């Protein structure tokens, strides 16, 4: 057993550090309280969405509806939560519960999650269009204040990333229930044999995903000040890429919450890095693909080297 295989988190950390160093070099202005905040504040909702996706991947499923769901949560936040907070929060709670119910349904009927969530992406998107047929709404004041707060020492984005990763690490890696949830991804049958109700566990995992999805939507509205029905659609693929960049695997319950947060930061940073490189607009899109490939390849080379030693 090699060191890197044991500590899967090292490679994501190293990729992020290298990319950050390169960014500092390209654009020294980023190396400041203000710069770091601008660089990373939009990574906060992505990190939350990535954690949400991780909860689903943890139980061997995949969620193709997450982007639409975060958009819906954002629309609810920018409208109901702002106008009638109690009703708004109740709706958000209902969204979380419906995610949990979805998990239970997928397990009980043995449905392929990828298909159900594909269908749900239409449903969430349609509901978001009901609420906001055209962009609008407004972020609740407290939320805007929270997302633009200026804590001492480190900018909000960094503090938030640390808090998210510590909380989810405690929840998923350290706690007993988190261990059982990961066990569902590793071998659901043996978890069931040990007397756990897998249907409840799946509902819990999906419910947690729903919770983090809602938080992502709220954080997004706090930053963007308003919402629209398409605001977070790209979070679906981004969150999947983030989980993988963070050292997670699609099957077997091998996920790392800290890695997921780091993966989300890496993806955000990669886009900024490219923009600092001032490529021709033709190639800006392609370069994002290239950098994704590069970061993952670096991971491969390191893990090969690690295995060789």
């Amino acid at each position, binding site marked *: 057993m090699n060191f890197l295989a044991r500590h899967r988190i090292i490679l994501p950390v190293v990729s992020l550090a290298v990319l950050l160093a390169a960014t500092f070099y390209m*654009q020294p*202005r*980023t190396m400041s309280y203000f*710069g770091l905040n*601008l*660089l990373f*504040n*939009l990574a906060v*909702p*992505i990190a939350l969405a990535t954690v949400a996706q991780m909860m689903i991947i943890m139980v061997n499923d995949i969620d193709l509806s997450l982007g639409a769901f975060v958009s819906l949560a954002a629309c609810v936040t920018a409208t109901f939560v702002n106008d009638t907070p109690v009703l708004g929060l109740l709706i958000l709670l209902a969204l979380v519960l419906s995610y949990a119910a979805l998990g239970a349904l997928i397990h009980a009927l043995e449905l392929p999650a990828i298909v159900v969530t594909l269908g749900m992406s239409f449903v969430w998107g349609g509901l*978001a*269009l009901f609420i*906001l*047929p*055209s*962009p*609008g*709404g*407004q972020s609740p004041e407290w939320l805007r204040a929270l997302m633009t707060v200026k804590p001492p020492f480190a900018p909000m984005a960094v503090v938030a990333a640390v808090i998210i990763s510590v909380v989810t690490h405690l929840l998923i890696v350290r706690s007993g229930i988190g261990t059982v949830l990961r066990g569902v991804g590793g071998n659901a049958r043996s978890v069931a044999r040990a007397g756990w109700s897998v249907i409840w566990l799946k509902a819990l995992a999906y419910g947690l995903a729903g919770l983090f999805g809602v938080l992502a939507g709220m954080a*997004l509205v706090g*930053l*963007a*000040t*308003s*919402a*629209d*029905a*398409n*605001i*977070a*659609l*790209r*979070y679906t693929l981004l969150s999947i890429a983030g989980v993988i960049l963070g050292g997670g695997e699609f099957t077997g319950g091998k996920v790392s919450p800290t890695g997921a947060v780091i993966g989300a930061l890496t993806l*955000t940073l990669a*886009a*900024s890095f490219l*923009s*600092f490189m*001032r490529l021709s*607009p033709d190639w*800006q*899109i392609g370069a*994002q693909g290239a950098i994704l490939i590069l970061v993952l390849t670096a991971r491969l080379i390191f893990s090969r080297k690690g295995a060789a030693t």
Partner: protein
Amino acid sequence: NSHMAETSDKRIALSNNYAGNSWRQAMLQTFKETGEEAVSDGMVAAADAYTTSENQATEQAAQIQNMILQGYDAIVLNAASPTALNGAVKEACDAGVTVVSFDGIVTEPCAWRIAVDFAAMGKEQVDYLATRLPEGGNLLEIRGLAGVFVDDEISKGIHEGVAENDQFEIVGSVHGDWAQDVAQKAVAGILPSLPQVVGVVTQGGDGYGTAQAFKAAGRDTPLIVLGNRQDELQWWADQRDASDYETLSLSIAPGVASLAFWVAQQILAGEDVPKDLTVPFLKITQDSLDDALASTPEGSVANVSYALDDAKQVIADAK
């Protein structure tokens, strides 16, 4: 020019959210040409274009934040959302960056807006149909991308127009996403269940596909209001030559990016510019069709490029 010296060290960036259609490509091209010329003339130090990979506000917000970090003096912005970028735009303003939005404008008060009255564009289509088809009839509405501001505005204008001209009724409405193939598919799907349609109101980029769908279904071609794409104009010219087909084509010119560029330059030069400017949309009629077609590259969009003087004129008009 008295302002020249003052902006020669200024850097302007274009923040664009989408590059996937000919309109956006023409816009990028115009901006590039205008920018390169301005740089070589020493008017500004840099004019760089940036495009996000997906048409998403979140990605564009990050792009604007990066531009702040890169120290641009002004950002010319075609926004993915009128409101969702307000946070980032506010940050830019707070950092002393001038933000000029156009086409897809933002509502943040600190930014400038070069707006097209999209609702009027929708209404004008119905008004035109009313002159051509006085006894009215059934209309088919082709919409853009659901949930996007421009789609909603144009559609509002159209419905307003129909309310005023009650000889018309909208019997079907589909989303064509401003793309010929999507429009073609959507129209083909709804046509079988529709009664006879006399006119089609569109949003641009979808007229040709609509015409194709009518043809494939073996129906008479109704009066389709077009959207300035070269293939639409070409089709129109062919129809005109074959059967005296007559219609109207209107859309915002991609060259508005160059107008926004010059407005930004003027603001940087210290000119007092009102926050809200308007540009007329580019209208092509039966008479101007041949000229428009001749000046539009194949596969592109009818365009006009704006010079510094045009910008000064627009500013003066708004004062």
